[in-house]
């Protein structure tokens, strides 16, 4: 019997076109159902309509049935006991100042006795391994811990269905993988039904049971994982790029195998005798002049604390893109703030075009020629509309207003120029924020997690824009968890570890020495070509090899 049925669901805000149209979904008990699609396609709106308490204001048609009964007929208490919801932003979901109370809140609301609460919380804490931070303040938790707490707070209520809206969007790659593995355990060991919206699909294909693709509010395809893969391959759909690289390879090369995991992919490649040819690894070519030089900077937040930045030194050349990786809380964002002038380091120096930079006063916390994108891009906007904000900023910084049209056209944000910043999706906000920074024609761009909230295609557009800026001579420093994006975009990569930056290397040289902090493509290719970091390179090398093999066979 179907657990959840969505029939002809159509939703629109008043006086606007539908956000979702005629959606039909059937979810059975124990399913691990992945919903995917481009940003703004209505996925989050669909999830919101599954939870009566959080219904968006608008016009709804169609029906959602839980155990064959319309969901509207369930009381709120019954609903929250059946369906748990984990949002994208871990910070916005947490209510209380301490972890224990956060875990208990849902149980208090459904009237569970104190003794039973203690047992259920104790069990969940064990399952999630939260013992060491159980008595911490929620403000002091890392992003990964916060998202775990949200999942634990949801699971402690023992719902039948757990709904997750891009839960790994703000997590580093290792935390994201661990989170997905935990979801798999919850699905397999506890039999919970999982409905998840995600952009990072590679790790979900092997564990999902069903998938649904939504575009422009409409259901393009829904079915088992095999059916979805077959649909994407047969129609050469642009979302084929979301398939695991091993499967993409098999499709592109016309192989019969169906490898979903890295392990299966490596087996297939071994069977094809790949990896006999030698290749030269790409190295960094740093001949352009040094634009930014960071020399031995030290920084700590207070006298008695340890250094967050300890003897950090590196160079950024003209027309270069460097990506910095590292765990949450390791100091990467603080490094960007130290460079842009928002944090005064107590030792060391920063030189821009060979000129040593002075410490900035509290009033002027910006260095000339540097633009910095914060982790929360909404803090860059203070006016009612994007266009108004750009114009006010031009007035404030004595910039020509012609630049407003230039950046709007460059970032292709014409459609959102009259919108309020709070009404934009995550991806739109990132683009608008970058546009604002480009108004002042900076020479150095510092980007903190710029691809957060962007789908695959938006990321590609963003990447092309950064390359264009780079080719025009801009120097770009990116702090990111997005390994694939960095591999495609950067000239150099480095890791922030133990309060320092390790040596900057080309993406190929950097990733080849890593087993965990590396794109999925590199994990697949490592036994054969350890310096391959993007899919196209892997495909081309295998095609070379196959060409060579075919030539050998024909002799």
């Amino acid at each position, binding site marked *: 019997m179907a657990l959840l049925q969505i029939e002809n669901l159509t939703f629109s805000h008043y006086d606007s076109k539908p956000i979702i149209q005629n959606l039909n979904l059937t979810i059975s008990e124990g399913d691990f159902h992945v919903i995917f699609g481009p940003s703004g396609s209505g996925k989050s709106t669909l999830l919101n309509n599954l939870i009566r308490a959080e219904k968006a204001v608008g016009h709804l048609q169609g029906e959602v049935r839980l155990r064959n009964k319309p969901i509207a007929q369930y009381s*709120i208490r019954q609903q929250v006991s059946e369906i748990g919801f984990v949002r994208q932003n871990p910070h916005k979901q947490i209510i209380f100042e301490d972890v224990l109370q956060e875990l208990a809140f849902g149980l208090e*609301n459904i*009237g569970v006795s104190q003794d039973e609460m203690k047992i259920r919380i104790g069990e969940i804490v064990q399952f999630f391994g939260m013992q060491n931070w159980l008595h911490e303040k929620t403000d002091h938790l890392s992003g990964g811990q916060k998202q775990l707490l949200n999942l634990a707070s949801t699971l402690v209520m023992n719902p039948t269905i757990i709904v997750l809206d891009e839960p790994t969007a703000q997590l580093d790659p290792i935390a994201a993988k661990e989170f997905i593995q935990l979801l798999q355990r919850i699905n397999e060991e506890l039999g919970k039904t999982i409905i998840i919206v995600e952009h990072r699909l590679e790790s979900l294909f092997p564990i999902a049971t069903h998938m649904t693709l939504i575009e422009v509010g409409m259901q393009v395809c829904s079915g088992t994982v095999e059916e979805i893969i077959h649909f994407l391959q047969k129609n050469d759909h642009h979302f084929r790029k979301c398939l695991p690289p091993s499967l993409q390879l098999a499709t592109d090369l016309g192989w019969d195998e169906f490898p979903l995991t890295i392990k299966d992919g490596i087996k297939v490649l071994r069977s094809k005798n790949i990896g006999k040819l030698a290749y030269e690894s790409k190295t960094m070519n740093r001949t352009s002049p040094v634009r930014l030089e960071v020399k031995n900077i030290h920084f700590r937040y207070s006298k008695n604390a340890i250094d967050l930045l300890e003897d950090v030194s590196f160079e950024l050349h003209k027309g270069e893109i460097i990506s910095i990786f590292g765990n949450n809380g390791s100091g990467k964002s603080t490094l960007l703030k130290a460079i842009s002038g928002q944090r005064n380091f107590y030792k060391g120096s920063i030189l821009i075009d060979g000129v040593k930079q002075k410490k900035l006063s509290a009033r002027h916390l910006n260095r000339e020629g540097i633009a910095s994108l914060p982790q929360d891009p909404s803090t860059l906007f203070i006016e009612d509309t994007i266009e108004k904000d750009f114009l006010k900023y031009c007035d404030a910084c004595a910039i020509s207003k012609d630049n407003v049209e230039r950046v709007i056209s460059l970032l292709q944000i014409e459609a959102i120029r009259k919108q309020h910043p709070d009404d934009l999706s995550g991806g739109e906000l990132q683009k608008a924020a970058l546009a604002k920074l480009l108004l002042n024609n900076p020479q150095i761009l510092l980007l903190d997690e710029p691809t957060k909230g962007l789908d695959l295609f938006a990321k590609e557009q963003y990447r092309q824009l950064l390359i264009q800026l780079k080719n025009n001579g801009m120097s770009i420093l990116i702090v990111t968890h997005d390994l694939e994006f960095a591999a495609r975009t950067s000239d150099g990569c480095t890791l922030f570890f133990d309060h320092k930056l390790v040596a900057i290397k080309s993406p190929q040289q950097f990733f080849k020495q890593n087993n965990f902090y590396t794109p999925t493509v590199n994990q697949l290719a490592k036994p054969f070509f350890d310096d391959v970091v993007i899919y196209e390179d892997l495909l081309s090398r295998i095609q070379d090899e196959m060409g060579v093999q075919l030539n050998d066979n024909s002799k």
Partner: protein
Amino acid sequence: MLTFHQFHPLTLTLYYLFLLVILWLFKAPIVIFLLFISLFLFWSISQNRKSILNELVFVASLSGLIMLFTIYFYHNGATPIFYLNDQAVTTEVIFYSIVMAVAVAATWITWQALIISFPMKKIIYLTSNRSITLAIALSNFVRWIPNGKIQFQKVMEAQQSIGYFSSQSKFERMYKTVKIWMNSYYNAFENTFQKSAVMHERGFKSGKRTHFQHYRFRKTDCIIVVSILITFFIMVINYAQLRYYFFPLRKEMTVEPIYWLVFVFISLPIIIQIKGWVQWHYYKSKI
């Protein structure tokens, strides 16, 4: 070790309400000044040096503005010192403006101390089984100001980093700061509705609630509550005698016997915290 925050939420509610009512009902300058000093010390114990300095700057600025405003618009009193726009500025008004400025500062710092004493869970504990709407409104209102502060700092930093404050005009920079301040607190206010939505998603308005943590009403709570009620009752009966007036001539400043009890209440948080600190160090020395 008992700390002030560990009293029953009802006791704490009554305590803070009592202080605010006494402050504004009687307006006794000695009580106002002592209240401000005592609660500021109590609040500072849990803060770092930078926060304390920022708070002092804010309180001093706010008090200064209130004093100027009062002196400019109030012309009561019998002892003029100078004339402003042909209106007399009297010693009574000056004294009144100082006392009112400190009263507002004391109210602000009482609010700050209350936020520390009342995490969300205590507010929910007190109000949720009486009125869910009140519980949501109060808990989100209490979090509004701390969240507004955080948002203000984030936005200020981001805007400073892109050169928004690069103007030479002090007035323009001040205007922009006020604009960001209003924007941040408005955003924080809007976000409280989002928290409400999250609370609803987890079944907050779905029926009778149980509690994970129960607060014991101890003997000390009983003593404090009864003492507060008796003190307040005595003060209300003697309102005419106890209330302080500023105009036309200000009342002679005397310490009525009942005020000694009020002083004890005002100093209670800091006395208990110091006692707890001493006790802890004593036990630590035995480890």
